[in-house]
C-alpha cells in the first residue's frame, strides 16, 4: 500500500518457544514458571566440559512447522555457534543455525480484510533460548534465572513481503494459529513464548530497491506489534518526506509512551563470529522421517476454515473466527456433532462463550483450560432456543446456572419452569394489560414512533418474567395496536 507516494516494506522474525517436555540440548524440563534455577543441569548452565545432545523431538517440531508452511526440509543442516557475552548466555555462545538452516523457502497464505495474500518464509531454524536477567529486585545485584536456558526455539523469518500493518497482523496471527494447530507452541506473546521483531523500511512508491531497514524489538502483544509498526511507518515516512537520512538501527518499542527509541546503530553491530558447532554432527534428515511427519500433520486452520464454510454453511468471517484457534474450532464441531444447528452454535461460541473466556481469562497459555459449559450442554441449549422452548435471553440467563454442573439444559428448564410461553391465549391478556397501562406510549407509537414498540415488548417480557416468546409478543402487540 502506498500513502503519499511512499511504500512500506515489512518483514517479521518470530521466535516461537516449543512445547517439548525437555530442553533442546539436555533433559531438563522446558516447562515455564518453575522457581528460579530449579530446571537446570550442568549442560544448560554451561559448566566446564559439558556437551549438547540434540532433542529429537525438537527436530520433529521444526519439520512440522516447515511442512505446514510449505518449506523445503534440508536433508543436511548444521548447527552453528553465535558468539557474544551476556550474563543470561551461560556458554558465551548460543547454539543456533546459520548457513544451513533446517527449513527454507516456504510461504503462507493470510486473509487481509477477507482478501488472500501470500507471504514468503525465508527460513526456519532451531536454536536454544537464553536465561533471564532479573534486575532491581535485590538492591544493587542483578540475578540470573537459567530455567529458560536451553529451552527450544524456532526462529521463523519472513520475506519482506508485507506492505501494511494489517498484513503484518494477519501474518502473525496466521502463523501463531498454525503453530498452535501443530501443537508445537502455545503462542503466548505476553509470557514470551511467541516473540516478534519487525524489520520496517519505507521507499518511494515504485522503487525497486529497499529503503534503510530499522529493526523494532520489545513488543509483547499483537497490538504492540501493530502499533510499533504503525509508529515506525509514520516516523520513517515523515523523515523521507522531509528529506532526512534514515539510519540502519535497532529500536525498542516503549509501550507506555507508545513510541520507538533507538537502541544501537548498526555501525557498532556485534560481530557474532558464527562458525559450525563442533560438538554436534551435521543433522541428517531422511526423507522417510519427513514423510512420516507429513502424514501426521493435523488439518490446518486454512483448510478447516474452508471446510467450515463448505460443510457447515458458515460465513467466511465466522469460519475464520472459529478456526483461528484449534480448541475453539474443536469445541464448535463437538457441539455440531451433538446435534446443534451449525449457524446458531457458531453465533453462541463467537459471542457468548468467547466473551466469557475473555472476561474471565479462562485460557492459560492460550489453550482454554476449562470451558464455561461443555460443547454438549451448549448444543442442547442452542437446540432449545432453535425449537422455541426458551428464548435467547432465558438461555443466556441459564449459562451461569449450568456452569460446572454438567446438568442437561432441558432438565434445568423443566425444573425451573422456564419454558417459553408461546401460548397465544395467555400472552393476549398480558399484551392487552400493557397497552392499557401505558396510554402515552401507545399514543406515541400510533403517532409513528416505531421504536416505542421495543419498550412495550419489554414490558410484556417483564410481566412474563422473561419467559414470553419475544417474536410472538411483538406480533400480538402490533395486531392489537393496529386494531384500536
Amino acid at each position, binding site marked *: 500500500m502506498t500513502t503519499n507516494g511512499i511504500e512500506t516494506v515489512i518483514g517479521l522474525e518470530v521466535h516461537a518457544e516449543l512445547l517439548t517436555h525437555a530442553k533442546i540440548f539436555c533433559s531438563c524440563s522446558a516447562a515455564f514458571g518453575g522457581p528460579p534455577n530449579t530446571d537446570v543441569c*550442568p549442560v544448560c548452565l554451561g559448566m566446564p566440559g559439558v556437551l549438547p545432545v540434540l532433542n529429537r523431538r525438537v527436530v520433529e517440531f521444526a519439520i512440522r512447522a516447515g511442512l505446514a508452511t510449505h518449506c523445503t526440509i534440508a536433508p543436511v543442516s548444521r548447527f552453528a555457534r553465535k558468539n557474544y557475552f551476556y550474563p543470561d548466555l551461560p556458554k558465551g555462545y548460543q547454539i543456533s543455525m546459520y548457513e544451513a538452516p533446517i527449513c527454507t523457502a516456504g510461504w503462507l497464505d493470510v486473509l487481509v480484510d477477507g482478501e488472500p495474500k501470500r507471504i514468503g518464509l525465508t527460513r526456519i531454524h532451531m536454536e536454544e533460548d537464553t536465561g533471564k536477567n532479573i534486575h532491581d529486585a535485590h538492591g544493587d545485584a542483578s540475578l540470573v534465572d537459567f530455567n529458560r536456558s536451553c529451552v527450544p526455539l524456532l526462529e521463523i523469518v519472513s520475506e519482506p513481503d508485507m506492505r501494511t500493518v494489517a498484513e503484518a497482523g494477519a501474518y502473525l496471527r496466521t502463523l501463531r494459529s498454525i503453530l498452535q494447530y501443530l501443537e508445537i507452541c502455545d503462542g503466548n506473546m505476553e509470557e514470551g513464548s511467541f516473540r516478534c521483531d519487525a524489520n520496517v523500511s519505507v521507499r518511494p512508491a515504485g522503487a525497486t530497491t529497499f529503503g534503510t531497514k530499522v529493526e523494532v524489538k520489545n513488543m509483547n502483544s499483537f497490538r504492540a506489534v501493530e502499533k510499533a509498526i504503525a509508529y515506525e511507518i509514520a516516523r520513517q515516512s515523515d523523515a523521507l518526506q522531509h528529506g532526512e537520512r534514515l539510519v540502519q538501527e535497532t529500536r525498542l518499542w516503549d509501550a507506555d509512551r507508545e513510541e520507538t527509541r533507538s537502541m544501537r546503530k548498526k555501525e557498532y553491530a556485534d560481530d557474532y563470529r558464527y562458525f559450525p558447532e563442533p560438538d554436534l554432527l551435521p543433522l541428517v534428515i531422511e526423507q522417510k522421517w519427513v514423510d512420516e511427519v507429513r502424514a501426521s500433520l493435523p488439518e490446518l486452520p486454512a483448510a478447516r476454515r474452508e471446510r467450515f464454510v463448505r460443510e457447515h454453511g458458515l460465513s467466511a468471517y465466522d469460519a475464520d473466527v472459529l478456526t483461528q484457534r484449534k480448541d475453539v474450532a474443536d469445541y464448535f464441531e463437538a457441539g455440531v456433532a451433538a446435534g446443534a444447528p451449525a449457524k446458531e452454535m457458531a453465533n453462541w461460541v463467537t459471542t457468548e462463550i468467547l466473551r466469557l473466556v475473555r472476561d474471565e481469562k479462562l485460557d492459560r497459555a492460550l489453550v482454554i483450560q476449562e470451558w464455561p459449559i461443555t460443547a454438549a450442554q451448549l448444543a442442547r441449549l442452542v437446540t432449545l432456543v432453535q425449537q422455541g422452548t426458551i428464548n435467547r435471553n432465558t438461555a443466556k440467563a441459564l449459562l451461569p446456572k449450568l456452569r460446572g454442573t454438567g446438568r442437561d439444559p432441558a432438565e434445568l428448564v423443566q425444573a425451573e419452569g422456564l419454558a417459553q410461553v408461546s401460548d397465544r391465549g395467555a400472552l393476549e391478556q398480558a399484551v392487552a394489560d400493557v397497552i392499557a397501562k401505558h396510554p402515552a406510549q401507545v399514543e406515541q407509537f400510533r403517532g409513528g414512533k416505531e421504536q416505542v414498540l421495543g419498550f412495550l415488548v419489554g414490558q410484556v417480557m417483564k410481566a412474563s418474567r422473561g419467559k414470553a416468546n419475544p417474536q410472538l409478543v411483538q406480533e400480538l402487540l402490533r395486531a392489537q395496536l393496529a386494531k384500536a
Partner: protein
Amino acid sequence: MSALTDLSVREAAARVRRRDVSSVELTRAALARIAAVEPALGAFLTVAGAEALAAAGAIDRRVAAGEDPGPLAGVPVGIKDIICTNGIRTTAASRILQKFVPPYDATVTARLKDAGAVVVGKLNCDEFAMGSSTENSALGTTRNPWDPDRVPGGSSGGSAAAVAARECHASLGTDTGGSVRLPAAFCGVVGLKPTYGRVSRYGVIAYASSLDQVGPIARDVADTALVLQAIAGNDPRDSTSSPRPVPSYAAALDRGVRGLRLGLPREYFVEGMQPEVEAAVRGAVQQLERLGATVQPVSLPHTEYAIATYYLIATAEASSNLARYDGIRYGLRVSEPSLRAMYQRSRAAGFGTEVKRRIMLGTYALSAGYYDAYYLKAQQVRTLIRRDFEQALGTCDALVAPVAPTTAFRFGEKTADPLTMYLFDIFTISVNLAGLPGLSVPCGFDQTGLPIGLQLIGRSFDEETLLRVGAAYEAATDWHAKRPPA
C-alpha cells in the same frame, strides 16, 4: 622384590582380585610415593588421598564379598586436571578455575571408576591444555623425572611424569595436537591418542572441540590397551562419540607384525632434528623389519601447512569454548561496578598469557571479513591433510615416525618465542587434524639419558594395529622397562 608402585596395571589388578594385595595397600603405597617425590616433581595439582582410600576400601569390600570390581580392580590412577571429577577440584591448571569443584564426573572418569580404578589425584598440565611443556600451567611447575632441569612435555606433562615416577600406575591425558604423545615420549612412557570419537569428551574441559581426545598413559603397551578398553566406546552424552563397537584390544597385542606394511613419511624426517632422535627412530624401524614387517616410504605432502591450519582451527574453537569463563556462575570473578569491567578484569586476571594469545588469535580468525580467508580456508586444508593420510594408509597398515624433533628441552628454552614452541608439535598435530589414532612408545635414549619416543599412526578406529605393533616392538626391546632415577 619390586615395590607395589612398580607393578603394572595388569599385575596390580590381578593381585587385588586374588586378594594377594588390597587396593588400600596399593593406594597407600601410591600416596606414600607421591608424598616422597612430589616436592621435587610437581606432577599433581590435587592429591585426593582421603577420597582415594575410601574408594580403595570399597573395592576391597567388593572383592571380599566375592564380586569382581572390574579390569582395573583397585589400581591407583591419576587424571589430568582438565577432566572433571565429581567433588574433586578440577582447575584446567588455570587461575580462573582454581577453586572449581565439578558436581559431575566426566564420562571417562566414571568409566575408570566403574572399571575399578582408584583416582589418587589430579595432574598438572598446560593451562587449558594449551602448550607443549606444561610451563603454561598457572598453578605449578612439573619437572621431567629423568632430569629436573627439563620439561616433562605437554600439555599432559603431569600425567606422563606421574606414571614415569611411579606415583600412579596409569593416567589419563588429553591430546589436541600431541598433548599425550609428546609428554609420553619426553618421560619415557607409553601414550595413546585414540581416534577422534573413540572416547567420550563429556566432562573434559574443552580446548578445541573438533581435535580434543582423551588418551591413556601407562608404562607399557598392554596397560595402555587395558585403560583404553575401560574408557572407549559410545557415550550418549557426546554426540561426536562413535557408535562403532569397541574391539578387544588385549586380543590384538600378541599378533606380531609379520606381514604388516609400515609407511615412513618422508616429511617427518626433517632438517634440524636431533640426530639421536632420528637414529633411534630409524633403529626402531629396522627392528620392526627384523620382526617381519615391511617398510615403505610414503608422502604426506600437505604436512607443511599443518601447524598453520591447526593454529587457526584450534584457536577459533578455543576462543568460543573459553567464553563461558565470564565470572558469572563459577570460577574467578573480579567484582566491578559495570558488567563490562567485570568481564574484562575477571578474564584478565584469570587467564594466562598463552591462553589470552590463543583467544585473540581465534577471535580474529572468526571475525567478519576474515572467516573465509582463515577459518574456512583452514578447514579446506584440513581436508587435504586428511586425504594425505587416507592415501598413505591405503597402501600401509600404519605409519612410523618420531613423536618430536628432539628430546625434552630445558625450562624457559622455548617460552620466549611462542612460534618455536608451536613448531614442536610438527609431527603430532596432523594426526589430530586427520582425526586418526597415534601411539607413542619409548624407543631409546639420547646421550644425556633422556627418553626418545616412536610414533605409530593408524587408520581411523584402528587402535588395534597400533597396539599390536607397539607390543611387538616392546617385546623385542627393553626401553620401556628403564626407569627414571629415583
